[in-house]
């Protein structure tokens, strides 16, 4: 069987070039898989053709999937099945990753065994949204593969007009800066919204990402319709002793203080003390980042919620903006769930087909959106108030006249 496969491998001179060098090679990975997988071989051949012709060879899949789910699988077919028979069908399964991307070798091996059996033996660890991407299987293998994955507790993630697979940074598991239990929050919300994730019922995709602090290591604000970012409300914890050590070690407090966006930091060289004006601190993390041993996040912790983040298609990219400046965030995260429901309901009702949340709010106006979900306007939601005089007034706000 092995030999048999070997023989068939077509020459891939261009791709072979990319096996060279120090950086890990995706070509080498595909070839490893191709040793035992016809599909991986087919992929290799088709991609080589793309390299020669400078064009892709995939066409959009019809709807394929598994029983009971409306998503989690992306259908893919070669646009030239005669030429690339082994790549004829090449669907991907989006498998919901473990929050924080933590795994045991045991789990990974089990996964590999299943995927070698039902698929190409190729993966993306991980997809940009966060899923484990099982890259390439046939329509007929989808269901058995899914069933087998279930045996080892791996479920599918989201696709289509649904809640997409959440992702988060490692949070409290491996980071001193985490203001929240990011991984637990992701796990809890994921379990709570299984139906919303597996059965698309919304105008378009909806993404939630969670970062433990404003460093935003999950890149949540740029990539999610709803970003939950850990933050705090009280004072940064300062250990003056450790600060002095950093200074002794040669750190320039002038430079550190100069980079504080709000001049909240001040270093008194005489008394050798660092003062932080809490009311001016905007929790940008800078000082904590450069002096992790000396400075620590505050004690009264919660999240800032940003909404509207997305890529350019089609109204232009957006970075999420503040909807809720501060919210406590302890299990079972009821307040967060209530808000998610309010938002998605409003969006489901008012959103056009393929209109992301951010685009909807832009179209209807932030004021209308806030009214719709029952939040009151706050200056923290904007960087500045309106500069144009075109204020809308409701009939009930003015004196009735003929």
């Amino acid at each position: 069987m092995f030999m048999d496969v070997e023989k068939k491998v077509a020459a891939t001179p261009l791709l072979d070039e990319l096996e060279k060098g120090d950086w890990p090679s995706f070509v080498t990975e595909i070839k490893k898989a191709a040793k035992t997988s016809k599909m991986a071989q087919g992929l290799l051949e088709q991609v080589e053709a793309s390299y020669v012709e400078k064009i892709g060879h995939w066409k959009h899949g019809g709807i394929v999937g598994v029983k009971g789910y409306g998503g989690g699988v992306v259908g893919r077919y070669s646009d030239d099945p005669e030429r690339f028979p082994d790549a004829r069908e090449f669907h991907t399964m989006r498998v919901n990753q473990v929050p924080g991307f933590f795994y045991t070798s045991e789990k990974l091996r089990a996964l590999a065994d299943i995927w070698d059996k039902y698929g190409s033996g190729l993966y993306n660890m991980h997809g940009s949204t966060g899923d484990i991407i099982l890259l390439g299987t046939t329509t007929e293998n989808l269901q058995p593969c899914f069933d087998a994955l279930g045996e080892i507790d791996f479920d599918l993630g989201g696709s289509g007009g649904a809640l997409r697979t959440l992702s988060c940074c490692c949070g409290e598991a491996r980071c001193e800066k985490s203001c929240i239990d990011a991984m637990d929050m992701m796990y809890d919300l994921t379990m709570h919204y299984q139906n919303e994730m597996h059965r698309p019922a919304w105008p378009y995709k909806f993404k939630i990402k969670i970062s433990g602090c404003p460093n935003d290591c999950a890149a949540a604000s740029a990539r999610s319709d709803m970003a939950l970012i850990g933050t705090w409300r009280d004072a940064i914890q300062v250990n003056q002793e450790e600060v002095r050590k950093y200074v002794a070690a040669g750190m320039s407090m002038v430079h550190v203080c100069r980079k504080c966006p709000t001049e909240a930091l001040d270093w008194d060289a005489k008394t050798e003390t660092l003062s932080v004006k809490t009311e001016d601190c905007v929790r940008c993390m800078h000082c904590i980042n450069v002096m992790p041993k000396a400075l620590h996040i505050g004690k009264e912790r919660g999240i800032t919620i940003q909404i509207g983040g997305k890529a350019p298609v089609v109204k232009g990219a957006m970075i999420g903006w503040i909807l809720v400046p501060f919210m406590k965030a302890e299990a079972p995260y009821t307040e967060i769930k209530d808000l998610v429901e309010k938002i998605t309901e409003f969006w489901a009702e008012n959103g056009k087909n393929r209109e992301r949340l951010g685009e909807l709010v832009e179209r209807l106006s932030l004021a209308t959106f806030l009214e719709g979900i029952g939040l009151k306007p706050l200056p923290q939601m904007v960087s500045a108030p309106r500069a144009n005089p075109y204020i809308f007034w409701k009939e009930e706000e003015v004196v009735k006249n003929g």
Partner: protein
Amino acid sequence: MARTDFGPPNYKTMLPPIITRNYGKWLYHEVPQPGVLRHVSETGEELYSVRVASARLVSSDFIRDISDIAEKYCGGFLRFTTRNNVEFLVSDKAKLEPLLKELDEKDYLVGGVGLSISNIVHTQGWIHCKSAVTDASGLTKNIMETMVDYFTGKKSVPARCRIAVACCVNMCGACHCSDIAVVGIHRTIPRINHELASKICEIPNTIASCPTGAIRPNPKMKSIEINHDKCMMCGNCTVVCPAIKIMDPENDGVSIWVGGKVSNARSKPMFSRLAIPFIPNNPPFWPEVTDAVTHLVETWASNARPGERMGEWIGRIGWERFFAITDLPFTDKHLDDFTHANTTFRSTTQFKY
């Protein structure tokens, strides 16, 4: 047929000799006392400019009176400023004190120079404009009445504070870049006289005149109708069709905007942004408006750093802090919903509580 296209008088014939001699040669200036500028030339000559307040809306008597003064102390030479003050141009230092004395006796207000609050750039209002939602002259008189000490230099400010008043959103004063702007606004949608409209309204033009597409035809009445949810009360349609009226004494009034600037000094020019969405018209004193402006000026003056204009101060502390310190309510009206609205949304976790 009469002479045409001959343009304004040649400025060269309007300059005092000292300026002609030192044109383009000025080296530096000082402010020896409030309201007075001393410009020194590389030739060593010095020119004293004495700035006095004007109502801008003036009579022939006023024109003749300042002419008398100019003849007595300035060889008949004077000028006006871009903010409508009058400047007496004194080339003979000996005449400075007597001039100031006479101005004082005649109740002219000397000031508006340097770190002060100068005259208000304003517009026609009920005096002459068909679009006026309020009266610019009245507002200006009342506001400056409360600012007199800042004009004369009795009270000081951290930086210039440019106040402007416009009687409608056309903003003829170009309020849109002022430290403090008072702008007349409507709060109700235009009312249509269908009877009249059916006769004179050029419906396609009228529909086209609406920036938000709020106007649609009303075939039954051979007229048009306005969609309330889409109308932003800009009044543009009323310019095109006489059958549309937007004036509404009960609901019209003024809004107050802050933080704009034009100069490129230190920071870039900035737009004025909404501070107070609405204050009713309350002539002759508009007390709510003068109180609001005084409050804004005093809050800024007591919190800003030296040299920090309103918008620079707010830029440093942040708008959330501005609304907290001034104790002004932040409402749905403050949220931008116009073309570039989402560029004003706060796309960062950085904010002050």
